[in-house]
C-alpha cells in the first residue's frame, strides 16, 4: 500500500528543549491514525510540521511524495485545536473563505455536512456554542477533497451528542484514497475508529502499531494500554 505520509528521523528543538526526538513514522493510504499522548508530548508540534506551520530542526517529511511546501498544503486539510474564523462572519462567509482559499473545497459536500450537523448557513459565528463551533470547523475541513486530513483534538470539550455527530461525520467521510491523522487524549471515545495508534511521550514514539494487533497481543483496549503506558 502507498504511503501518504513518510517521516524520517524528524527532530524539532526549541532553544534548549527537544519537542520531537528522532521520529520515524509512515502513514498508509486509507488509514485513520491516532496520535495519542498527554499535553506537552509533542502532538501539536508534529502536526504543525506536517502542515508547514513550523520547520523541523532536522529530518525529513514527505506528504504524497513531496516535501512539505506549497503542494502539500494544497492536499492537506487541517483542523486546528482552536477557532480560526472571525467573529463577524456567518457560516456562509466561512464557506466563501474556504472556497477562495482551497480549490478542492466542495460546496455541495459542505452543505450536506451542515445538514448532517444541523447547522444553518445564516447562523452567526459568535452565536455558536462550543459544540456547534467544533461541528462547523470539522464540516469545513471535511468538505475539502484532500489527501490527508489532520484533526487536532476534534472532540475535546464537546457534549456526548455532539461528540457522536462528529464521530459519525468522520466515519461518513472516510475514503480509501485519503488518510486521517487524529490527535486526542480522549482515547476511549475515539479508539474504535482508529486503524493504527501512535503513542507519543516526551517527543518520542514509544509505541506504534495496528490497534487491533495491540488489543489482541495485550488483551486490553487501547484506553487501558494508554493508561498503563502514561501513568508510569
Amino acid at each position, binding site marked *: 500500500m502507498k504511503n501518504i505520509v513518510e517521516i524520517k528521523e524528524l527532530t524539532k528543538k526549541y532553544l534548549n528543549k527537544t519537542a520531537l526526538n528522532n521520529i520515524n513514522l509512515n502513514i498508509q493510504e*486509507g*488509514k*485513520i491514525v491516532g496520535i495519542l499522548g498527554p499535553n506537552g508530548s509533542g502532538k501539536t508540534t508534529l502536526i504543525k510540521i506536517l502542515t508547514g506551520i513550523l520547520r523541523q530542526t532536522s529530518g525529513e517529511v514527505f506528504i504524497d511524495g513531496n516535501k512539505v511546501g506549497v503542494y502539500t498544503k494544497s492536499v492537506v486539510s487541517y483542523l486546528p485545536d482552536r477557532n480560526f474564523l472571525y467573529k463577524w462572519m456567518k457560516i456562509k462567509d466561512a464557506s466563501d473563505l474556504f472556497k477562495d482559499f482551497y480549490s478542492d473545497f466542495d460546496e455541495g459536500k459542505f452543505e450536506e455536512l451542515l445538514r448532517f450537523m444541523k447547522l444553518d448557513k445564516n447562523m452567526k459565528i459568535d452565536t455558536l456554542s462550543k459544540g456547534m463551533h467544533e461541528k462547523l470547523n470539522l464540516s469545513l475541513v471535511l468538505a475539502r477533497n484532500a489527501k490527508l486530513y489532520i484533526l487536532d483534538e476534534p472532540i475535546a470539550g464537546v457534549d456526548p451528542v455532539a461528540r*457522536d455527530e462528529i*464521530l*459519525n461525520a468522520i*466515519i*461518513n467521510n*472516510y475514503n480509501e484514497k485519503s488518510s486521517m491523522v487524529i490527535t486526542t487524549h480522549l482515547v*476511549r471515545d475515539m479508539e*474504535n*475508529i*482508529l*486503524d493504527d495508534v501512535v503513542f507519543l511521550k516526551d517527543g518520542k514514539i514509544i509505541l506504534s502499531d495496528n*490497534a*487491533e494487533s495491540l*488489543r*489482541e497481543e495485550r*488483551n*486490553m*483496549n487501547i*484506553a*487501558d494500554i494508554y493508561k498503563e503506558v502514561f501513568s508510569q
Partner: protein
Amino acid sequence: MDFNNNLPIYIQIMNLIKSRIISGNISGGDKLPSVRDLSKELRVNPNTIQRAYQELEREGLVFTQRGMGTFATEDMEIIKNLKKTIATDLVDKFFIEMKKLGFTSHEVKEIVSEWMEREERE
C-alpha cells in the same frame, strides 16, 4: 453498542453478527448490512468491519457476491453447528462461574430444574 471489553473489535463484531444469525434476526441467505452502513451504525472503523466480514467468510458463515454484497450462509448445517458451539460456550461459562461460587453440579441441576418448572408454569 459498546466495545469496551478487551477483545479485538473485529471479534466483537463477528460475535454480534453470529448472535444475529442464531436469533434469526438475520436469516440464511439474507444480505448483511454493507461495510459502510455497519461502520456508521456501530461507529467503528470501516477496515475493522471489513476484517470481521473476511473472518466470518473464512469460517463459512457468510459469503460474498461480487458487486452484490455479503450474505449469510444458506447452509443450515453450518448454522446448526454455530448454535451448538455458542450454546456450549455459554453453558461452560455458566458452570465455571457457578463452581467458582461453590455450587456443586447437583445443586446447579436443582436450580436449573426449578427455573424450568417456573418457566413452564408461567
